[in-house]
């Protein structure tokens, strides 16, 4: 065997070994390459906020990242972000605060590679609570952005 042939064989061997050692997650066309954890997070369509705040928590960020990955995979999809507040404080201020929450989520979607023209935001202020009681547990559920994909 010539020296050239040995080199070729060695190269093939290396390639072969490398091929066997590839243990990454297979690209699943149906999930668009999302991790299992991200697929699970897609069930979460609400992210929550502290009082008078539009800061996105790390928990919320993971949910938004999953939806953004899903958006990147599904080119035709668009997302509507609905900002909501709890009943405390004034209605018009809350209308503004709800918009600020929706925009904070929209900004993160854009930063994660989702084109701006695929994102719409709307604020409902405190007008559409999901929990109707007047206590902290209800308020916590109502301070939210709803992520609605189409």
């Amino acid at each position, binding site marked *: 065997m010539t020296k050239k042939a040995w080199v070729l064989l060695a190269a093939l061997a290396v390639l072969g070994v490398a091929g066997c050692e590839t243990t990454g997650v297979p690209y699943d066309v149906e999930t668009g390459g999302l991790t299992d954890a991200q697929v699970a997070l897609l069930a979460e369509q609400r992210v929550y906020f502290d009082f*008078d705040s539009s800061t996105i928590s790390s928990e919320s960020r993971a949910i938004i990242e999953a939806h953004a990955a899903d958006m990147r995979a599904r080119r035709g999809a668009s997302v509507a972000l609905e900002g909501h507040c709890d*009943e*405390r*404080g*004034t*209605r*018009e*201020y809350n*209308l*503004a*605060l709800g*918009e*600020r929450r929706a*925009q904070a989520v929209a900004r993160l979607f854009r930063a994660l590679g989702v084109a701006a023209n695929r994102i719409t*935001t*709307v*604020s*409902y*202020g405190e*007008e*559409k609570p999901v929990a109707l*009681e*007047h206590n902290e547990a209800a308020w916590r559920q109502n301070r939210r952005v709803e992520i609605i994909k189409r």
Partner: protein
Amino acid sequence: MVRRVGLLLVAWGLIACSQTAQAVLTIEITQSADVGLPIAIVPFALAGKDKPAHDVAAVVEADLARSGRFAPVPRKHFLGTPHEDQDVVFKDWRRIKAEALLIGKKKKLPNGQWQVEFRLYDVFKGKQLAGYIFRVDENALRATAHQISDVVYERLTGEPGAFSSRIAYVTKETHKKRNIYKLQVADSDGYGPVTIVKSPEPLLSPAWSPDGARLAYVSFEEQRSMVYAQSLVDGRREKLAEFTGINGAPAWSPDGKRLALTLSRDGNPEIYVMDFASRRLTRLTKNYAIDTEPAWSPDGRHIIFTSDRAGQPQIYRMDADGGDVTRLTFEGSYNARASYAPDGATLTLVSRNGGAYHIAILHLANNLLQVLTDTPLDESPSFAPNGRMVLYATEVRGGGVLASVSADGRVRQVFKFEQGDVREPAWSPSNQPLQYTE
């Protein structure tokens, strides 16, 4: 001494338009003043067989009691029930410590109208203070009663009454999981509500035009906030703002020619002024923060608004062209939705104290913040056109109700509707001017 009786001719206009509506509301005085002028109100005599649809004297008595400035003397203490001037015996009224006396009579005229006559006396001076005859249609009898209350209030306190004004508010009912929102207008005592708008989507922020003929409001009927204006005379409405983002917080200028509002079409909520004639928009605020809830000063020179530019919502004042911004509130971490008293000396606003949201008055001369209420979720305060009461929304046993408090905080009452949530009250501007010959 001349005891004259004047003929009061009133331009009914809008009041005549309101259909007879079911009284679905009662008012409960939850805190009353210990001091009020004792006034004896004698039930009005009824001449003839026809009975009127409304008890005029009872409406007047309820009005005056609600104001907190009067303490009607219980009828059981009366030593007589005069209806005619010559039957009034002042010493009988002095004996039961009444300081003022109101008598009257009513009768149906051949043309179907009602004639209502009243006389108001100062018991201690033994002198007539006012006397008028009204000739009105039957459906205007309650309005007539409110006019009488206004005359009594003005003669005895020296300040105009606000009983002939109206209130606008939003109700929310839920039937089989479907929401129905209604923007309604009623008399100042909550009587005779008329629905102006009905929608399956939220309605909010009703704002009266200075002539009381139109309401601007925010509707979500197209799944996002847009500002409309609607005539109360013919029901015609127009969409004033449908820009990208928020369209909200409408407020008419005192001359009725402009509308301040909040738009976020440039990215975040800013205050704009729309000129009605040209539809031209002028942006007044330029700030990364939330700027919203504009309200004009009575002289039209300033606009106050809520901004969180310092981190939390507080009240600011600027010139009507957007210049010279000054912060007005410093006490507490949340002050919002301010509006001026008619004299421009005070503001009413929502102020957080601990975890609770109360109605407060800010005295502009000394920056003193006076908290008027002690319930936890109070909002949407607006002054009566005479500045003596504040109407607001609060919560009782889990439901939204309207309430009012005297501007000194002494008298409070809750308006109880039969069903549904009631919110977003707005008190109409000044009463319709009285035109009368004396």
